[in-house]
């Protein structure tokens, strides 16, 4: 596989040095496609409209090795990260590589597959769908994932099958002697009227530099219902560039909630494509950042057929000199009448030096639709703080409660109790960090 990833040499280097060593044809084909795309793709700069607020030097000035070229620290006991609701429906990846001993799949309904992509690469489902849903052409990070991945999560639900326990995809990143890149991959295929909850988590055990470039592909056939929570708690020195995409057939429902807490630089480009009439989808986000963290969400809600409901609530809390960017594109094609789409971006600035950029981008070509959007940037209201303070709460506790209340709506959307409790704790830690 690849050796070194560096700014100037990166693309030419990858073109020559990355080679697919997967014995699986389905994966090898995508690896080769990725390598080819890296040949023609260009590394984004601030002159590119979609990247103009992001300083990619934290990536470009570093040298990133492939995982097999670095010495990684042992993962140790990570059982505290297991979800009690998903003890028998968990896939664990360490630095992008599947770890069977830490994973657990038991008592799943008949025909359901939850496993490593490599082990299932021969199946017709994988051959048919892997790499066909993702559409981030010309994108260096998606191409890098294509080029270098071999392991990954594969979830398949047969027709009319409901998986009651949430499926936990736990991506753990360990300390290493050198900076590395990891290419987590997730393919979900839900047949007609199937139903599942997916918790995709990224967690950095140490404070090291790495580049995490996950690609996730969700294919929902008619009437399939999916709840997809994504929790990003990478190392505070890491960069995370995500390409999650879902395509929906008739009556499908896809609800995604992305929680961003970690990483020095987080870039997330969620896309949902409506492939038939009468779909319902959600692309919510909650961002809690401080220090010099950057979190950039560039989403596309792509309505291509009539009768669809979509919601997007993107909530952001910024402290210190952190920087949040939100660019929410809503596309409605000419014949996609009766679309009901609602977008809201709410930002809470806790410091004087934090920055928020927000841009709704509605491109509507149909004439009978209901599309609304709103964006607010505010600070904690001093009268709210004083009100709670005068009731006996310390000023710190008052602020903590108010930030918690701001985030609460997103947390309550998690649908898995232990995840809600975890996020509750994390929000308290975030607001309470100065008291430690």
């Amino acid at each position, binding site marked *: 596989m690849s050796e070194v990833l560096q700014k100037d040499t990166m693309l030419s280097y990858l073109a020559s040095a990355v080679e697919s060593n997967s014995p699986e044809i389905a994966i090898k084909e995508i690896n080769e496609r990725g390598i080819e795309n890296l040949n023609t793709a260009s590394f984004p700069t601030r002159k590119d409209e979609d990247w103009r607020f992001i300083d990619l030097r934290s990536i470009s000035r570093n040298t990133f090795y492939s995982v097999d070229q670095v010495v990684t620290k042992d993962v140790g006991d990570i059982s505290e990260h297991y979800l009690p609701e998903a003890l028998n429906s968990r896939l664990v990846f360490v630095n992008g590589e599947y770890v069977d001993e830490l994973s657990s799949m038991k008592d799943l309904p008949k025909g359901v597959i939850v496993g490593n992509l490599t082990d299932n690469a021969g199946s017709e489902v994988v051959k048919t769908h892997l790499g066909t849903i993702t559409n981030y052409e010309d994108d260096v990070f998606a191409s890098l994932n294509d080029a270098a991945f071999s392991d990954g999560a594969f979830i398949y639900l047969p027709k009319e099958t409901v998986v009651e326990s949430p499926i936990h995809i736990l991506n753990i990143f360990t300390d290493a002697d050198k900076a590395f890149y990891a290419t987590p991959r997730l393919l979900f295929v839900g047949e007609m009227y199937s139903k599942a909850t997916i918790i995709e988590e990224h967690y950095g055990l140490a404070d090291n530099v790495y580049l995490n470039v996950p690609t996730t592909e969700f294919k929902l056939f008619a009437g399939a219902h999916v709840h997809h929570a994504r929790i990003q708690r990478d190392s505070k020195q890491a960069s995370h560039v995500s390409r999650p995409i879902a395509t929906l057939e008739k009556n499908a429902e896809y609800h995604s909630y992305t929680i961003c807490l970690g990483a020095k630089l987080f870039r997330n480009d969620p896309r949902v494509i409506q492939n038939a009439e009468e779909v319902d989808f959600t692309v919510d986000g909650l961002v809690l950042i401080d220090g010099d963290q950057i979190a950039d969400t560039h989403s596309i809600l792509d309505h291509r057929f009539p009768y669809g409901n979509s919601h997007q609530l993107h909530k952001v809390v910024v402290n210190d000199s952190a920087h949040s960017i939100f660019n929410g594109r809503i596309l409605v094609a000419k014949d996609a009448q009766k679309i009901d789409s609602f977008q809201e971006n709410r930002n809470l600035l806790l410091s004087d030096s934090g920055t928020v950029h927000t841009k709704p981008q509605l491109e509507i070509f149909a004439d009978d639709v209901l599309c609304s959007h709103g964006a607010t940037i505010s600070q904690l209201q001093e009268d709210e703080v004083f009100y709670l303070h*005068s009731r*006996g709460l310390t000023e710190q506790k008052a602020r903590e409660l108010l930030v918690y209340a701001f985030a609460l709506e997103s947390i309550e959307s998690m649908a898995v109790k232990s995840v809600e409790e975890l996020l509750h704790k994390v929000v308290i830690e975030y607001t309470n960090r100065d008291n430690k």
Partner: protein
Amino acid sequence: MLEIINLHAKVEGEDIAILKGVNLTVNAGEIHAIMGPNGSGKSTLAKVVSGHPEYEVTEGQILFEGEDITELDADERAHLGLFLAFQYPVEVPGITNKTLLREAYNTIARANDREELDPLEFEDYIVSKLEVIEMKNEFLERSVNTGFSGGEKKKNEIFQMAVLNPVLSFLDETDSGLDIDALKVVSEGVNKIANEKNAIVMITHYQRLLNYIKPDFVHIMLDGKIIKSGDIALAEELEVSGYEQYERKLSVNGEAQ
């Protein structure tokens, strides 16, 4: 219980004095009414006594149970038993009445070495206080003041007062914006809470509230000072002749700006 001595205060960072030498003594078991026209400083007095950071005390003292509280933070004053019913109660979306009150109640209990209540005990306790303002259990689960009507917001202030059981309460224009039914509920609530151990200072523009809550003392505040004190007769006189005679007197004396 409360002794305010020659209190001067201004808005933090500005030079305009709002309180210009207030003197007021409140003892246990008493109900006081401070009346005055808009801009006389009566709401500011309530905020300064409760520790609002927007104001700076430039001279004078606030003594509570003999202790100088002039420099204490708002939460520390609440721990001692001070309470301010806000003129404009603040909406706090996402935090339920119950959550806020349990946090407040237990924080105050901790500060006073009293036993905290666990969620079940607190539930029983708080439900028992609902009758003070004639509200149903659902009231507890609603976000603090969020989407409340004006009357509900004022009732919520009195409800909080009933739950936190303060020693001294300032009610800042609690009557404003209330229809007659809500006014009755609110004032009956206050009357139920009032006893010989606590004290209440009502701040009001109109005499209307005093028909329902009988004050032992009435003070007239004008231009940052209490210029006259008396009993309920003073309020009745104001109702007839208004504040104008006092304002004129001030101008004659050359003290008004």
